[in-house]
């Protein structure tokens, strides 16, 4: 028997290599570094991400396929890499001092962050459903471990276990979906699926059910109702730095893959899949916002808020075409910045391992920590979609795409939802500036790294809110290949 090895073109993998090696180096480095030098590990992680960014920028404009079309290099993949690198860099920054107190095993933590980033990159670059699945699992396995990183904490353990059990369950849907699509089309390579569908035959039930199963798997990862129920529990239980990483990273990766599969490979089936996603989008937005109204724990509130934002992104997916995909990419950047920013503030405000998790804990901070509070207000306003923030522009582009795709009602439901959401995003701001603190807490200096994360996120949130043109152009270029 002859085993024909595929010829591997390394260029499409070039941006992933620094991240992969960084992850390995962090793991190995941990063994050799003396206890006082552990700061070197996150620095190494940041360096490898920076290198990956440079490679991505260098490759901008190149279009290549590798490993038998299973890995794709195009602007869309590169744009996604940049988003993931941004998420990882901010997450590492906000983890640096958050971890010191509780975790001696830094190497594992940062290598897991880097490996999950690698998983995200594989998902965005997947030209083959199997590769996307591989990326998904790589991301998920690392995250299961990260969720349980505080071994002594029951909540952390519970979060990890729940995520693992439910995640495995959802992955099986995804895998079964791939199998059915393979049965229907004879391939799992996206390009060949496109070619298979190009002759205009009506799709078989097998193919449609396979697509539906994929949707369940993705629905779980993006926390779409009714596949969302793990989200608040896991986000609340996981260490705050991990929650921040998951909330931004998982969503970005899953939506990148959703765009690849649904808008690039299966646009011919849009007639069939748009109606169910329409329903998912409405349910997800509405339930997320409604339940967030009554949350008192800020992590749980942001968890429901992330569900609602998944709903907005699904609106853009339904809208489809180039405008929908463009607005998804733009929104993912805005979403990452404002969520990671908010979490960075939470971490920067923690005092001696005491996190401020109840909304009431923020009372009076507006005047004791004016700059951090102002940034928190900025992130909340951005999440609520008020100008001049990136969140406003992102929503504007999404709802414009919906109207352009003749989904007027979706745009209206989305806008109404964002009106409801103002109430709960405003609450921490009101409490910060307008309530007296119940107990006086000592002021503790904040982590410098977390402050950096806050500053970067705040700058980005304002930059893309005031001058969204450049980013929007890049996003548009990135999806040009997906067709109109």
């Amino acid at each position, binding site marked *: 028997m002859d085993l024909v090895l595929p010829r591997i073109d390394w260029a499409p993998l070039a941006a992933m290599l620094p991240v992969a090696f960084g992850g390995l180096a962090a793991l190995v480095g941990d063994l050799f570094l003396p206890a006082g030098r552990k700061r070197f590990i996150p620095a190494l992680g940041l360096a490898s991400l920076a290198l990956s960014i440079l490679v991505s920028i260098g490759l901008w404009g190149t279009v290549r396929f590798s490993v038998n079309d299973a890995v794709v290099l195009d602007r869309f993949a590169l744009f996604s890499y940049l988003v993931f690198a941004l998420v990882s860099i901010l997450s590492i920054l906000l983890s640096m001092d958050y971890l010191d107190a509780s975790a001696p095993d830094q190497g594992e933590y940062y290598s897991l962050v880097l490996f999950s980033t690698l998983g995200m990159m594989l998902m965005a670059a997947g030209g083959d459903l199997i590769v996307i699945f591989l990326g998904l699992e790589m991301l998920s396995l690392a995250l299961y471990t990260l969720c349980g990183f505080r071994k002594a904490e*029951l909540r952390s353990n*519970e979060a990890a*276990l*729940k995520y693992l059990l*439910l995640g495995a369950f959802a992955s099986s849907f995804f895998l079964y979906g791939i199998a059915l699509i393979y049965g229907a089309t004879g391939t799992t390579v996206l390009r060949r699926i496109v070619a298979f569908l190009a002759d205009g035959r009506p*799709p078989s039930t097998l193919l449609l059910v396979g697509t539906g199963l994929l949707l*369940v798997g993705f629905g779980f990862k993006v926390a779409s109702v009714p596949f969302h129920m793990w989200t608040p529990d896991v986000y*609340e239980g996981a260490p705050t730095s991990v929650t921040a990483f998951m909330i931004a990273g998982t969503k970005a990766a899953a939506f990148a893959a959703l765009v690849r599969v649904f808008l690039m490979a299966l646009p011919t089936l849009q007639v069939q899949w748009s109606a169910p996603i329409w329903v998912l989008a409405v349910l997800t937005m509405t*339930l997320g916002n*409604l339940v967030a109204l009554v949350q008192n724990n800020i992590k749980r509130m942001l968890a429901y808020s992330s569900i609602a934002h998944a709903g907005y992104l699904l609106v853009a997916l339904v809208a489809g075409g180039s405008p929908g995909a463009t607005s998804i990419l733009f929104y993912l950047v805005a979403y990452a910045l404002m969520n990671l920013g908010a979490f960075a503030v939470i971490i920067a405000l923690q005092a001696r391992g005491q996190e401020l998790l109840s909304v009431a804990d923020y009372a009076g901070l507006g005047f004791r920590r004016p700059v951090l509070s102002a940034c928190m207000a900025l992130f909340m306003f951005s999440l609520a979609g008020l100008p001049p923030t990136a969140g406003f522009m992102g929503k504007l582009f999404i709802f414009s795409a919906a109207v352009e795709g003749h989904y007027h009602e979706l745009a209206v439901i989305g806008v109404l939802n964002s009106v409801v959401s103002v109430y709960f995003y405003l609450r921490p701001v009101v409490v910060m500036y307008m309530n007296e603190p119940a107990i006086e807490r000592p002021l503790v200096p904040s982590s410098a790294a977390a402050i950096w994360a806050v500053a970067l996120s705040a700058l980005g949130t304002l930059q893309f809110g005031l001058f969204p043109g450049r980013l929007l152009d890049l996003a548009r270029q990135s999806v040009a290949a997906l067709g109109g």
Partner: protein
Amino acid sequence: MSHIWPMFNQIWLIPVIPLVGSLVVGLMGRSMRRGSVALIACGAASLALLASLASFWRLLSLPPDARVLRHSLGSWIASGELSVAFGFLFDPLSATMALVVTGVGLLIHVYSIGYMGEDRDYHRFFSLLNLFLAEMLVLVLADNYLLLFLGWEGVGLCSYLLIAFWFERPAAASAGTKAFLVNRIGDAAVVVAMIWMILLFGTLDFQTIFTGAPATLSHGSLAASVLSLLLFAGAVGKSAQLPLYVWLPDAMEGPTPVSALIHAATMVTAGVYMVARSAPLFQLAPVSLEIVAWVGGITALYAASIALVQTDIKRIIAYSTISQLGYMFLGLGVGAYAAGIFHLMTHAFFKALLFLAAGSVIHALAGEQDLRRMGGLRRSLRVTAGCFLVGALANAGIIPFAGFWSKDEILLAAYASGHRLLWIVGALTAAGTGFYMFRLYFLAFEGESRLTPEAASHLHESPWSMRLPLVLLALGSATVGFFGIPPESGVFHRFLGPSFPVSGHQGGSAPSPSGIGLALAALVMAGAGILMAFRYYLRDPKEPEALAERYPTLYRILVHKYWVDELYDDLVVRPTMAGARFVSASFDAGLVDGAVNGIGSLLGSAGALLRRLQTGHVPAYVLSILVGAVVLLGYLAFHG
């Protein structure tokens, strides 16, 4: 000087100057002396006024039909089909607004030096005031809807922060939040309108939209009506019209200069401005114009009726503001755009005056706002009383004060365009206005003193920094109406005319005998209101109680403001929160509820943890995923 002038009449300077002032005061004010803070903030406001005047001069040097200045600070969004510039526009309409905003704004800045003199957050106040000015100027100078919306939300944010300025008072904090949230409802409509316009016109630029509109949206089409009504919904929120007016009376919890500047003279007129600016779109939708006119007319009467029986001095003026804004919309709705904006301008003067004079009273009485504990104040607050009287006469529409000319013109236009019923509504409102304005004046300034001993001992006339703006505003309230003589063809109208499309009812005509008759009729109504106030509150002070006893139902309805707040609470706020709690209880039986109870016993026991997971929530979550998957797959298999 002459070489500085050409630089100084750049229109982008107008909003940038107060923005810089706000940043300087906000970032460095903490370590400055109060005098420096006041100097910088008031200096920024004066420079903004000077810059507006400079541009205004430049505008006047152009021939009337070419009076448009544009300045683009560059492209804002240029991507694919959508392009929006960071552009400013200075035409007669923007010029009027900019002059009103900076002029009245400057006086209120000066007034605040005295009024806020003892506040511990002096620099925060002035920083916000300057920021408000900057945002408001962005709003009125924008040359596209997106930039307008940026200012629109910016003034909303400043308004929220300034209402809640004394956040130690729970009422202030909740009033601020209420204002912000109610406004979001209208803003949502504006966002939808903007998205729609992007698709229709590929831009949000005023000029492109207005020139393209007649071709894209045919006259009287449903699309034109819906689009203009969406914009109007935003205006209803911002300008406190029925049914979204509920936030404005509560907004009076803010410091009085804020009430004067934001909630009377400038921000609340933003809705009127936007509708006037969008006149070419409304011109295409007669139905929308009709709705604008009726919403305005009914709000005018409705708010005036509530003002009849209130006892809080600032609340009466707040309801009066809502009522006068109603007049402006009535004017716009019947196609008299210039008259609506004219009333906006005169109103800015006399309403700012009334609020500042009320503030002077409150300041003199150490915070007392209840009319029942005032009386006879004229004897000790001569300047304040005199200025208030001028404001009251202007507001009541008594000739020759400013309010007469502008209100008369709106009523005349309503009548001439065939809206006889609306004219009656407007005239009834005029009677109510005369009554409540002078009820307020008589109860506060005339008659016997009902002051508490504490307030009486504190009684003093305000410092010069507060009296000077009062006097200047009183002069304005007495005279700015003359720019509108003769009606519809005065200086003001000839200047403003090119900004508006020619509607059915416009263009100068000599005052006709019937016009004079109508004006007289309205004047008589207002006079009757004043006389009634005189009879019940000055000559025979026992009568009002007898009146309230004779019509208890009516009285209760008015005192309770038609129970609208309660109604909204029951219909909207409670059901939403109850729904959220219900949904939350059904879908969010999460970690917190379960884990907190048993956390002690479970701690460290992995076995117990697993058991809890197996008997706890995870199966429910799996079930949710399964049900979702089955429905989804069933649909795709059988329907797809």
